[in-house]
């Protein structure tokens, strides 16, 4: 097993080196003409098992850059996106970043989409002092390592724990809940960290978490635990988990007669939840996510995207678009194509309007402070009922 993996990686490095050679050879001639364009590297999962995420994000990014160029570019310069495929693998993400930095001479990199690949890439980018914007990676350790912020790594989406804080605020302010039960997936860091933050924030707001329960991904039967959750008789039930289990939990909770609101996070954002739970059981449930396609302010983006690609954008496309807008703003403020100046400008972004909302970069963590939208499931439809800023 190890042997194969190692030899594969070796093969990857060799292939990368060979590729680098050819690209380098073809690059020399263009150097002179590049002064009126600014090159942006796009390191994405275009093939492999999360290709859907990478491709959608890249589509969104391309749309943003196209709009900026159509409006005259930035300070007279056009932006040029150079994309590289990381095949949905961490080792390939490093190769792709190396290629973009040393061969294509990009000033900034956008991507990859998933957390593990961004983390793999971050050392190469940091060594070369090239800023990175991760559009969709929501895990906290993308930008922070051992309590230290990584100077060149940023993201343009909110992080997992922020949703916990948003939902706590929603529960206590909008739903006027005084008591809550937290029910997390013990096999997922995403779920556990959200549960922890929810509890802290909900209790800070004067509420009380009266019971904490856990399950494991792939469980089928939740009735036993839900029976004891029912005895707690809390105002809300918070289930930060992924759609497969969420569907079953909501279904079984309603069957046992738990009628209180059930709250969740962006793991709920999938039509499977309704397939499993049924639309009736799903009434009176709420979850936080990045944006709503029913939101008026998102409409221009959705229309432009649909016109260009012939289908409606998903959440990844929206986040890719946001990353593009944020990057353009930073280059404009830096008034230079020097990577370090761009880095400083990204850190200073404040109250910038992007496709899905308004973002301000937190210089201490390199996470944007960004509103989340709360959607309510209602008779098979999703209604946007609030936009909430995390604490």
């Amino acid at each position, binding site marked *: 097993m190890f042997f194969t993996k190692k030899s594969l990686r070796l093969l990857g490095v060799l292939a990368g080196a060979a590729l680098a050679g050819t690209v380098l050879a073809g690059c020399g001639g263009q150097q002179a003409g590049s002064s009126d364009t600014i090159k942006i590297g796009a390191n994405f999962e275009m093939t492999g098992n999360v290709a859907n995420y990478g491709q959608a994000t890249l589509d969104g990014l391309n749309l943003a850059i196209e709009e900026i160029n159509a409006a005259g570019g930035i300070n007279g310069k056009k932006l040029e996106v150079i994309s590289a495929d990381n095949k949905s693998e961490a080792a390939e993400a490093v190769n792709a970043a190396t290629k973009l930095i040393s061969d294509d001479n990009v000033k900034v990199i956008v991507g990859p989409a998933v957390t593990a690949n961004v983390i793999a890439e971050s050392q190469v980018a940091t060594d070369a002092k090239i800023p990175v914007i991760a559009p969709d990676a929501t895990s906290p350790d993308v930008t922070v390592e051992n309590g230290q912020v990584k100077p060149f790594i940023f993201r343009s989406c909110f992080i997992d724990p922020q949703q916990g804080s948003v939902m706590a605020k929603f529960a206590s302010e909008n739903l006027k809940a005084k008591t809550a039960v937290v029910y997390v997936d013990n096999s997922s860091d995403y779920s556990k960290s959200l549960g922890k933050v929810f509890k802290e924030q909900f209790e800070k707001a004067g509420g009380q978490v009266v019971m904490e329960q856990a*399950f*494991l991904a792939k469980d*089928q039967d*939740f009735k036993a*635990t839900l029976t004891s959750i029912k005895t707690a008789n809390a105002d809300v039930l918070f289930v930060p988990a992924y759609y497969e289990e969420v569907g*079953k939990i909501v279904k079984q909770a309603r069957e046992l*007669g738990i009628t209180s609101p059930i709250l969740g996070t962006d793991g709920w954002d999938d039509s499977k939840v309704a397939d499993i739970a*049924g639309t009736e059981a799903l009434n009176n449930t709420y979850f936080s996510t990045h944006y709503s396609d029913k939101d008026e302010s998102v409409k221009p983006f959705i229309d432009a995207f649909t016109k260009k690609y012939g289908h409606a954008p998903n959440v990844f496309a929206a986040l890719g678009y946001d990353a593009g807008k944020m990057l353009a703003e930073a280059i404009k403020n830096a008034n230079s194509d020097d990577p370090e100046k761009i880095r400083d400008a990204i850190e200073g972004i404040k109250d910038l309007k992007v496709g899905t909302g308004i973002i301000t970069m937190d210089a201490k963590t390199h996470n944007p402070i960004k509103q989340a939208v709360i959607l309510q499931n209602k008779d098979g439809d999703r209604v946007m009922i609030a936009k909430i800023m995390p604490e």
Partner: protein
Amino acid sequence: MELGQQFLQQMVNGISLGSIYALIALGYTMIYGIIKLINFAHGDIYMVGAYIGFFAITQAGLGIVPALLVSLVTTGLLGMLVEKLAYKPLRHAPRLSVLITAIGVSFFLEYTSMYFVSPTPRTFPQVMDNVAVNIGGLVINGQQMLILGITFVLMVILTYIVKFTNTGKAMRAASFDVETAQLMGINSDRIISITFCIGSALAAVAGVLVGIYYNSIDPLMGIMPGLKAFVAAVLGGIGILPGAVVGGIILGVVEALVSGFISSTFRDAAAFAILILVLLVRPTGIFGKNTKEKV
């Protein structure tokens, strides 16, 4: 809800879950009773049964009872086929070889199904209305009643077959001693075949019921229930039919109580702790008799 009522609700949850274990455990125990084989592929037969039921409902548009029958018959035949192809050639081989073959069959079924039906979990269609009976806060829903009802009916039919038919008599004879039974004129290959058929059919029913109960099926869904049913069979005394039912229900109730009053993360640990305890304290199980092996 007060404590006593919560306890009763957990009993309801546990007995429904336990009935499923019992249906699977019956197949384990019948097969073990006759050819002394722990058929590790049994959990996967249950998965195949669930998928056949799923396709009968979604593709052929059948109602729940016809779908159950289609799944029961097809899966029963599959059980016979597995026995013919995988176990029959090894009738006189050491038991370890057959056991390893069973594990092979298990993987074969899992990954072949994964190839054909894709690893993504499927959502089982809603085949019955959500009715629930509420007795003073104690909730029993339609699916739980369906599970209990079908399990009960199957138990009655199975008892009848085993106790009062010639085939049943032959099965019991074969479980005492296959070779002697053969000398008495019983076609033991045929009896083994029928045993696999009945055992697999019961597992198929369990599979379809689980699909209806939890609304979601996937190609690896058989692994855990298969192991749990094995624990149930051992707990009741492997090879003994009433033992499998009692073992299954005890296991279901213990799991419900552990998840309800302690934490659901300890549930599986509790189930396997029971296995270890039974093997240490009373290896023959609740209904097992201590028979001395004559040398």
